[in-house]
């Protein structure tokens, strides 16, 4: 008797399915990675226990997961906005750097003792700078049809080096003995932190952005235009939706949001601009937005999940004495499996008996 595999496109999924699929995919990954750990004589159960205890087993671990979640949510929303219109903003990292750079510039040149005034001008500066970085790619796309994947990616490197130029150059803290960092921000330029943890005001910004994203995409005219272009650009253009203007606008807003993530990171945690302050949040944001399938609630969940992986990964290294590489194998297995299981969201799989003859 012979069987063959038949795939059928799935158009709707139930709530149960949406809940079970990610859990199942993570479970499969843990079993798979566990096999790899056992080969090296490491107990998978103890490893996973260390990982989840480190991230979720204490108030401190949980607060640190939230600290990691904040920049991922903000930059995840930033890229999701552009992705919804099928504009591929790969440049969130550079926009984050521009946001941080502008934040440091505002603190340096327009300091204010009033915390509200200071934070508002920092926010405006960061959003404008990040937005300008996105807009540059949008402008080239709409005027000259330059592929935004290339321009946004390239602008990352320019942004990073631009920040270095100032950090190593004229903004260098004179009391730092020549080491590359700006002078520390005054207290008025620091985001308040809550409950004795490092969870800072950026969390409010993240939640507001999730809500606004939902509202704008779902209920506004501009949101409709974004969705229409994202679903079918040509049809959208024929129906009179301005394509070029929207490309510029969406990349500006996307960059502005990413710039905000740069501001909350350095004003919330670091308190000065130092090279390498972002461990690639702008790139992780792309994974986050994809895994969340551009759904803002899911971006919250996925960012939190990434936070658990990152924070838990450090605990594994400490408790299990495992090198970073094995931690990355576990993290890679999980991400790979979660992405792989997307297949079952799109297709139903049947085994059909092959008719003989």
């Amino acid at each position: 008797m012979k069987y063959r595999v038949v795939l059928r496109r799935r158009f709707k999924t139930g709530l149960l399915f949406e809940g079970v699929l990610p859990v199942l995919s993570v479970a499969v990954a843990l079993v798979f990675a566990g096999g790899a750990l056992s080969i090296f004589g490491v107990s998978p159960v103890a490893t996973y226990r260390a990982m989840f205890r480190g991230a979720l087993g204490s108030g401190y671990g949980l607060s640190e997961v939230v600290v990691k979640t904040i920049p991922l949510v903000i930059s995840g929303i930033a890229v999701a906005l552009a992705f919804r219109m099928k504009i591929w903003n790969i440049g969130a990292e550079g926009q984050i750097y521009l946001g941080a750079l502008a934040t440091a510039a505002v603190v340096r040149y327009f300091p204010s003792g009033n915390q509200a005034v200071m934070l508002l001008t920092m926010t405006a500066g960061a959003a404008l700078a990040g937005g300008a970085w996105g807009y540059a790619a949008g402008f080239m796309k709409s005027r000259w049809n330059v592929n935004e994947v290339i321009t946004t990616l390239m602008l990352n490197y320019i942004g990073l080096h631009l920040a270095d130029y100032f950090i190593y150059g004229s903004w260098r803290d004179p009391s730092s003995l020549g080491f590359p960092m700006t002078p520390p921000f005054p207290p008025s330029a620091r985001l308040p932190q809550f409950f004795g943890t490092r969870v800072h005001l950026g969390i409010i910004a993240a939640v507001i952005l999730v809500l606004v994203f939902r509202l704008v995409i779902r209920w506004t005219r501009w949101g409709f235009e974004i969705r229409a272009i994202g679903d079918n650009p040509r049809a959208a253009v024929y129906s009179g939706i301005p394509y070029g203007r929207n490309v510029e606008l969406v990349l500006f807003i996307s960059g502005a949001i990413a710039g905000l993530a740069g501001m909350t990171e350095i004003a919330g945690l670091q308190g000065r601009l130092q090279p390498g302050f972002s461990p690639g949040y702008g790139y992780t944001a792309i994974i986050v937005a994809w895994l969340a399938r551009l759904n803002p609630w899911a971006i919250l969940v996925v960012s939190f999940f990434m936070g658990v992986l990152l924070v838990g990964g450090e605990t594994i290294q400490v408790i299990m004495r495992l090198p970073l590489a094995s931690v990355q194998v576990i993290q890679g297995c999980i991400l790979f499996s979660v992405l792989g299981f997307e297949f079952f969201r799109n297709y139903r799989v049947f085994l059909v008996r092959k008719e003989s003859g």
Partner: protein
Amino acid sequence: MKKLILMMLCVSMILGASAASAFEPVAAKDLKIGFVYVGPVGDGGWTYMHDMGRVEMEEAFPGVESFFVESVAEGPDSVRVMETFIRNGAKLVFATSFGYMDFVQEVAAKNPDVIFMHCSGYKSAPNVGNYFGRMYQARYLSGLVAGKMTKKNVIGFVAANPIPEVIRAINSFTQGARKVNPDVKVKVVWLFSWLDPGKEKEATLALIDAGADVIAMHADSGAAPQTAEEAGVYVVGYNNDMSHYAPTMHLTSPVWDWGMAYKYFVGKVIDGTWESSNIWWGLKEGFVGLSPISKVVPDEVVAIVESEKAKIIEGGWDVFYGPVRNQKGEEVVKSGEKMTDEEMLSMNWFVEGVEGEIPK
């Protein structure tokens, strides 16, 4: 008068007593130690050497447990790594890269009963000490070798980040090279990164293209020596004996002995005699040195190295004793004068003979 002396004695006793009793002795079996690493243990250079030191220390103190986290970004993430150490029982934390400085201060303030040692920084606290070495002395010795071995009188320097530590390395190396060969020029290429083997390779090739026939380096991996070996150009390594990366072209490497430092600090913590201090040991203490010099280097050059080394260890002379000239040829340190430690630690200018710019 007697009263005054008595009072002063009392005060000093109280102060002394409080300083000594700040940290109680710890039994080795109760001591857990966390190491924050900036790169992977397998970088074959900087972090690799710290980890060798950690292992050596663990072997010297049976019962002591140590753990590490690799590739920790020099940003806010390092705070959590240190907190995780402490939450898992660490009483002593070594942070092994400059960029952790502010974050060490942040965590140390919240954990006054934990001792922190920060490598290469300058901020102290009652529970934070700093440790680093006078690597410039070993750099100078390696410069003597390189200066004698170059034929084109052009040496390339692959340099990580334009901060005083690296600038000092380039300057002392150049002082050594020009001591034996006043025509030498040292060309500098900045990486703006501690560990980036791809960039380290590119920079090496660029310097060879620019005419360098000896390569020196300050970076975390062994990529530059590997590249030099492939190109058939002499190379001076860094961090550890890098001869295995360049079996035929390796001349020598200025090396660290972190193990001796870690054993020293851990011994102090166990005895309860640890106090916040800024350690800056050199050739004399054996914290820095040269790896065995290659057979291709003539004996008379090795003899020069030995005599200069003896001079530095004796203490009558050091690398940045005058006259030292800057790139414009101006005498920055006059004859008979010397640079203070503070001046060396904040060095932000190149000596004569260096071709390159420090981003300002």
